[in-house]
């Protein structure tokens, strides 16, 4: 078996490629995506008022991670390229945002337009970095690509120490962010505002990605993933397609990192370690590779699973000696076991499992009907 391609299990591939019931006009797709995004946005808006600040912050963090996992899903799930370096791309976006926000603050500029400008800056810089890495990545396959992206994941945080004059080493930079606009009221919770920023940006990204996936480009991505030779014979420029996928994916990761910086109001290299890159990859695979919905599950798991397993540990009443050993370690063990079990029991990830469940239900209903 060759690992040069076929990152997605055949089962997932076949569902992704299953013939649509009827050819839909492109305008219809766009409208449907818009509608879903609008509904999700309205739901989140309502939710931001319904839940307490900490849940708002957690949701905002999910949104920021979702930017990155969605990009990684496009790269790995749809285009078949593996990246262990998306944490580094997030760091690039985060540091760009921190530097621009600090420059604005130093220049005494204020106003609601600053943050969008900084976010756009973060996007542009990571797009450029993504292009450079992508050109190298397009030549490499499987573990060799993993090796290079892994090195990228290690290098970028280390640069913060090398250039500590600008980036302030391990301690990192603080990120000045404007408070919510006064029009929302003097006591508007900050976490709700953070959720609005993060969710708004992420929904926009998802809308664009969903359309990209369904466009001509999305089809070439998948064609390259499934069979490079066939794609080349069909007139697709394989390397160019791979670079394009990498650039798109890097840009969204950069935006995700920039959003994380906004949420944390600080950036430091420790937050973007190799561990983050590996966790992002785990998240998209566990969520279900190959569909953007899987990226949603992945981002949710990244935030919810540590929290849940910590809560579970807290339920156990332990002696001080036992507590010292288990504290911190038990949640990690639960997390590890979950990963292994999910991958063995449901290699299609959460989304694959749901699809299977849904299909089983449908089948039973139709059987009963007949």
């Amino acid at each position: 078996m060759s690992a040069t391609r076929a990152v997605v299990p055949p089962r997932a591939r076949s569902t992704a490629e299953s013939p649509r019931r009827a050819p839909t006009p492109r305008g219809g797709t766009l409208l449907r995506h818009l509608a879903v995004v609008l509904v999700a946005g309205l739901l989140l808006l309502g939710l931001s008022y319904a839940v307490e600040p900490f849940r708002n912050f957690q949701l905002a963090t999910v949104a920021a991670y979702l930017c990155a996992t969605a990009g990684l899903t496009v790269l790995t799930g749809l285009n078949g390229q593996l990246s262990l370096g998306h944490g580094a791309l997030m760091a690039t976006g985060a540091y760009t945002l921190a530097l621009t926000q600090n420059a604005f603050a130093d220049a005494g500029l204020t106003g609601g337009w600053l943050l969008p400008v900084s976010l756009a800056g973060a996007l542009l810089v990571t797009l450029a970095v993504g292009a450079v890495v992508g050109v190298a990545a397009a030549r490499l396959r499987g573990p060799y690509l993993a090796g290079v992206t892994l090195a990228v994941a290690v290098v970028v945080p280390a640069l913060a120490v090398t250039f500590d004059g600008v980036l302030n080493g391990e301690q990192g930079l603080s990120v000045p962010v404007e408070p919510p606009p006064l029009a929302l009221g003097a006591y508007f919770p900050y976490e709700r505002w953070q959720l609005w920023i993060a969710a708004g940006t992420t929904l926009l990204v998802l809308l664009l990605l969903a359309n990209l996936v369904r466009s001509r480009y999305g089809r070439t991505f998948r064609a390259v993933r499934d069979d490079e030779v066939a794609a080349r014979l069909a007139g697709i420029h394989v390397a160019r397609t791979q670079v394009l996928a990498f650039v798109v994916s890097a840009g969204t990761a950069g935006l995700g990192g920039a959003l994380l910086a906004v949420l944390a109001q600080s950036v430091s290299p420790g937050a973007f370690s190799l561990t983050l890159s590996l966790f992002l990859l785990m998240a998209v695979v566990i969520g279900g590779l190959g569909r953007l919905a899987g990226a949603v599950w992945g981002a949710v798991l990244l935030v919810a699973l540590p929290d849940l397993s910590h809560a579970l540990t807290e339920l156990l009443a332990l002696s001080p000696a036992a507590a010292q050993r288990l504290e911190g370690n038990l949640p990690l063990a639960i997390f590890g076991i979950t990963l292994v079990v999910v991958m063995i029991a449901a290699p299609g990830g959460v989304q694959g499992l749901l699809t299977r469940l849904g299909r089983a239900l449908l089948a039973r209903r139709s059987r009963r009907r007949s």
Partner: protein
Amino acid sequence: MDRFVFLTLDGLSRGAVYAAFALALVLIWRAARVVNFAQGAMAVAAAYVAYSVSAATGSYWLGFLAALAAGLLLGAVVDRVVMRHVDHASPLNPVIVALGLVLLIQAVLGMVYGSEFRPAPAPFSRSALTVGGLALLSPYDLFVFATVGVVVGALAWVFARTAVGLRMRAAAFAPEVSRLLGVNVGGMLTLGWALASSVGALAAMLVIPTELGLHPHAMDLVFVSAFTAAVVGGLDSPPGAVVGGLVVGLLLSYVSGYAGSDLTPLAVLVLLLAVLLVRPGGLFATVAARRV
């Protein structure tokens, strides 16, 4: 000049360990087409077994043997209990499972042994022998070179000359045909995992005494360096792993000696790009690296 000699020898002795660990990665890659990200955690687990055995018996060498045995066992268990049941249709699935194992193993070690550093004694003196005022290798460095050399030689012999080695290679490269010819493909795969895991445990035993000490995360950084080494050399090539390990060891030593230790990750990336952009399958890639 003194400094150059010093840095070279220092780099070579660390490079030898990276080579051994890279070799373990190459073994599993060749047998199962899996990059075993859990290699480091498994090796640390074996090293903890050695620690317990040494503490109980007072003998370093009993601990050393226990680590090798624990490595064999752990490799077989990981294959039989976990990896065997993973859908290998996507190469990503085993990678994610391996990452899950890393979390699990490190958490269990943290629970059992705590997160304190444990002393990891070296069986031979680590003081450099001085010749004409120039500090050369220590007895321990010589032990490392000898051990890695023996392992490389033994593996080459097993795969080239023995029936079992031949079966393992056949099972890895043509599982269907091998099965038809009566080779126990599953057994060979388990044997491959066990062997690789044992070599990884050996590398951990060699490298931990030169590092901060025994700790659940003791092999994290070594794994990154060794994986780099394996990629530079070419994951299909055992000689590539050895050369890659030595190259990475030398590079790290020269860069931290002459430029500053914060630049080592950058140097590693440059090395990877320089090698892979010229030879996308690593230095020792065979011609068929781009099978389609």
